[in-house]
């Protein structure tokens, strides 16, 4: 079971709700993924449009926990206000905290992130910070009260996979007891499986499913990849060797 704050989950795949070809495809993809946590956001509502109501009805039907994000916030202040609005609107104190520092990479502004995390933890939020694999920043986030860390694999929406495997492995080794969710940059199910094989507790992704040729089938593929990676990690992966070692016994080989 995946344990995050005061809740347990069977699924180790967290899925975003954005960028799907249609709401119906999004709903089918979420179901196929068997995700128990879905990320959502909040945006300006027009008095006539009322798009929010229909979306919220659809998401509530999943029966999954919603994890509102602060996507697009570029300062701690903006993120804190957005978090308060999200808590009221979605009736949850869980929050995917994003403070974006750079437009091309959507890299977290780790200074603003720590500042916002301190304040939001003090206000009773359960903060899941979208961060980098920097160990010092991770320490600061834990000191700020975060009980989960979500390092990026690669820039959001890039589909590059795990850009810094060494850094991600170091983070896993350095924080063996902290739930780590690989968030952002995943493109293929093999990337997700790889993160899970490294001992990551879960994977959060959106674009890789939403922008697939068949998002519903891809959601299923990611579920299988996450399960396979987790099972492999628990099973214990053999250490690599530099040289070949025959798998068929040498003893008893015929002399021909």
């Amino acid at each position, binding site marked *: 079971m995946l344990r995050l704050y005061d809740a347990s989950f069977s699924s180790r795949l967290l899925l975003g709700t954005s960028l799907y070809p249609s709401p119906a495809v999004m709903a089918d993809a979420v179901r196929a993924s068997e995700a128990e946590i879905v990320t959502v956001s*909040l945006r300006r509502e027009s008095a006539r449009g009322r798009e929010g109501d229909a979306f919220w009805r659809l998401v509530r039907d999943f029966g999954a926990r919603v994890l509102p994000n602060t996507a697009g916030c570029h300062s701690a202040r903006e993120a804190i206000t957005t978090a308060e609005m999200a808590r009221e609107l979605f009736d949850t104190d869980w929050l995917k905290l994003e403070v974006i520092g750079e437009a091309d990479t959507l890299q977290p502004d780790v200074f603003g992130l720590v500042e916002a995390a301190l304040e939001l933890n003090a206000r009773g939020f359960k903060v899941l910070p979208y961060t980098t694999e920097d160990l010092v920043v991770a320490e600061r986030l834990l000191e700020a009260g975060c009980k989960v860390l979500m390092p990026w694999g690669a820039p959001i929406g890039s589909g590059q996979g795990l850009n810094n495997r060494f850094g991600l492995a170091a983070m896993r080794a350095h924080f063996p007891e902290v739930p780590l969710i690989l968030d952002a940059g995943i493109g293929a199910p093999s990337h997700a499986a790889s993160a899970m094989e490294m001992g990551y507790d879960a994977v959060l992704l959106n674009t890789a499913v939403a922008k697939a040729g068949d998002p519903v089938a891809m959601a299923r593929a990611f579920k299988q990849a996450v399960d396979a990676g987790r099972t492999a990690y628990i099973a214990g992966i053999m250490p690599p060797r530099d040289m070949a070692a025959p798998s068929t016994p040498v003893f008893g080989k015929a002399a021909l």
Partner: protein
Amino acid sequence: MILVVNGEPQEAEADTMAAALEALGYEDASVATALNGDFVPKRKRAETAVKEGDRLEILAPRQGG
């Protein structure tokens, strides 16, 4: 009176956040509100004063990653 609602200037005769939401057509909508960058909880909308030129953000659930 002009209020800047979600980035657009709009005419609304209202002295509180709650009255502004009603005047702007949001009376029964599921929205969260901020005034000049500060969160205004639903329970405080009726007592939160608004004045000419104030910036209102009116947000609703949306797709997110």
